[in-house]
């Protein structure tokens, strides 16, 4: 599967639209079982890790306030970051869009003469389609995160921010390793079993050979401190440390919203991120570096600051808060829609609730108009978000924009614009949504044929006139949510 570039250069599989993709995913029982297990496990761990801190709400409030303040003065902090990184021996580049970022990275790699580079999992480089651009330029980009390696060997797409290969089970991974590793480097050992430890060992051996001779690595960044120029990468496996330490040249591609005012602000985010993300008190490895250090690590450090739709997002006073996101994936794990459809249905590198609010803003809402509807507005994402992004508020706001854009441009049949308006009217009111869904759940099962329904009763009728809608599960999302929330939530 290859990605199509959206209008502004965000890799985005614009088609099929969310409802169609969701229908396909819902039919896949194993994906659903894997996802349910993943989201439940991580959700429980997160609740334990955040529940341990009696000032969790104060930390969230600080995280939100720091992010909001930084965005409101973004030009100032970006200029400070540039000064600090430069003073510490790094070089800062600016990229307005994906094409420019890809060109900058490609030229930097060409200048080193390397034809193979290593990568650390990074959403920004997925967003701009860097690997594909490098392949066109004759450079092989090897993913070093285990899940990304699985995805890359399978010529696949990530389905979850945190565990991108969650849609694959161990037997498939074994087969992939056995069949594909040899094409990229050291083959998998003979007689490889499907034990996770054996698979991890195969990845260790395969990648170690690459780490030892790496000349160039490309990373993303979790945070960058404007006052000191310090850049942070948070990880678990150690592939990040390898890539940040061993090559001569390090290229970091970072969205401009990742800047923090001060090094000391890490005291908030290094508590919020690991506990929200993997539900650990601290992730195994966090690397912080400031420019270059003689005799230790890369001798050349390049920081590419990426806009690619972010300044447009900034211009929307309601939508702006989506740029607070620290990519912890907590909102995915609590989302009843995500749990049932998986990440691929969102057609974007940013899945789940954050994808539903970020992707339409990055690519332009007219190009991703179904995504803001990929939610029940239950609010669980807002409660979980460590930087307090009010996702339901942004969703509702974007829904209105999507409907306007459709009506204004007449790109699609008026019928669909009308259907969306109908859906908006229902979905903006949680109480009405609950009623409508219970009605749909009862009616839908009566009407469904082989798990597919042609026409929904009540308020959903308009929607199902233009979209073949999946049969609602026996319990509606909200009924399911209420039942499950009673069990584990605060």
């Amino acid at each position: 599967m290859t990605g199509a570039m959206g209008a502004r250069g965000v890799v985005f599989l614009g088609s099929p639209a969310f409802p169609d993709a969701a229908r396909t995913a819902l039919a896949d029982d194993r994906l659903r079982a894997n996802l349910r297990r993943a989201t439940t496990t991580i959700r429980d761990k997160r609740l334990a890790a955040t529940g341990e801190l009696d000032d969790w709400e104060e930390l969230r409030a600080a995280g939100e306030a720091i992010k909001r303040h930084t965005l409101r003065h973004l030009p100032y902090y970006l200029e400070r970051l540039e000064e600090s990184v430069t003073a510490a021996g790094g070089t800062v580049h600016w990229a307005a869009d994906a094409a420019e970022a890809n060109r900058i990275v490609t030229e930097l790699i060409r200048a080193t003469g390397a034809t193979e580079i290593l990568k650390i999992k990074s959403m920004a480089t997925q967003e701009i389609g860097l690997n594909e651009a490098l392949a066109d330029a004759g450079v092989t980009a090897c993913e070093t995160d285990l899940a990304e390696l699985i995805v890359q060997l399978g010529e696949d797409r990530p389905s979850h921010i945190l565990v991108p290969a969650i849609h694959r089970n161990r037997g498939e991974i074994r087969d992939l390793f056995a069949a594909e590793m040899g094409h990229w480097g050291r083959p998998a050992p003979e007689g490889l079993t499907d034990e996770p430890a054996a698979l991890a060992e195969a990845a260790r051996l395969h990648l170690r050979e690459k780490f030892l001779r790496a000349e160039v690595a490309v990373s993303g960044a979790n945070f960058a401190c404007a006052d000191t120029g310090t850049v942070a990468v948070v990880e678990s496996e150690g592939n990040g440390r390898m890539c940040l330490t061993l090559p001569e040249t390090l290229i970091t591609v970072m969205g401009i919203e990742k800047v923090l005012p001060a090094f000391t602000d890490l005291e908030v985010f290094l508590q919020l991120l690991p506990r929200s993300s993997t539900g650990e008190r601290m992730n195994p490895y966090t690397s912080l570096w400031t420019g270059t250090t003689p005799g230790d690590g890369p001798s050349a450090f390049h920081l590419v600051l990426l806009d690619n739709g972010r300044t447009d997002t900034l211009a929307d006073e309601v939508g702006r808060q989506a740029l607070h996101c620290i990519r912890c994936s907590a909102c995915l794990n609590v989302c009843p829609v995500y749990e049932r459809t998986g990440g691929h249905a969102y057609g974007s590198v940013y899945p789940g609730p954050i994808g539903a609010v970020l992707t339409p803003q990055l690519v332009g809402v007219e190009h991703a108009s179904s995504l803001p509807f990929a939610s029940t507005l239950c609010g669980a994402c807002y409660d979980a978000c460590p930087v307090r992004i009010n996702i339901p508020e942004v969703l509702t706001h974007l829904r209105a924009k999507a409907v306007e854009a459709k009506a204004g441009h007449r790109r699609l049949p008026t019928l669909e614009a009308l259907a969306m308006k109908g859906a908006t009217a229902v979905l903006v009111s949680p109480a009405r949504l609950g009623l409508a869904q219970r009605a749909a759940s009862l009616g839908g099962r009566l009407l469904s044929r082989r798990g597919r329904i042609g026409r929904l009763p009540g308020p959903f009728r308009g929607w199902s006139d233009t979209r073949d809608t999946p049969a609602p599960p026996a319990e509606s999302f909200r009924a399911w949510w209420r039942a499950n929330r009673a069990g584990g939530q605060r």
Partner: protein
Amino acid sequence: MSTRDTILGRARAALGDVPPAERPEEAPIPRGYRRSHADVPLVELFAERVADYRATVTVAPEHQAARTVGRLLADRGLTRAVVPDGFPDAWLPGGTFTRLGDAPPRTPAELDGIGAVLSTCAVAIAVTGTIVLDAGPGQGRRALTLLPDYHLCVVRAEQIAGDVPEAIALLDPTRPLTFVSGPSATSDIELDRVEGVHGPRTLDVIILTSTEEA
């Protein structure tokens, strides 16, 4: 116009709603969160939290450092290790142990082959069970504590900070910093946790208490 100016210009235009009187660096950030969540003695808490990550923890009085290091290495069947400059000689075991240096700098392949490293640390964090390396004395450049498959880290009790904010305040951001919380791990295959992927697969931690405390 350069791309830099384009992006900064777009960002300024996007922020027309921010009143000019609102200044950067003067934000009223609510910092009502705790400096530390530690509620028991730090040595005890740090030891418990490191052990949670399935690293081993040994608490020993400082005068028994060499004996403790020697015993841990012997338990693993190791007779040699990379020892960065500045690691106290008094903490090294005698007998058959071979101390390997890093001058001139060893290649990644050599470090990979040696398989063991001893180090000190810059700071430790009790609540999160984290050791922080800053490439200072006794730690060496980052590759030394990354490539060998076994890492033995010696922490002096007074280096243990309560929690993340206290630790951040003690660190020098101009140095390369690595936070280590247990051995490397992945949960990428069906969420089964596997310890040890690319970093050292075994982490042993010794906490040295001053002789009076012990």
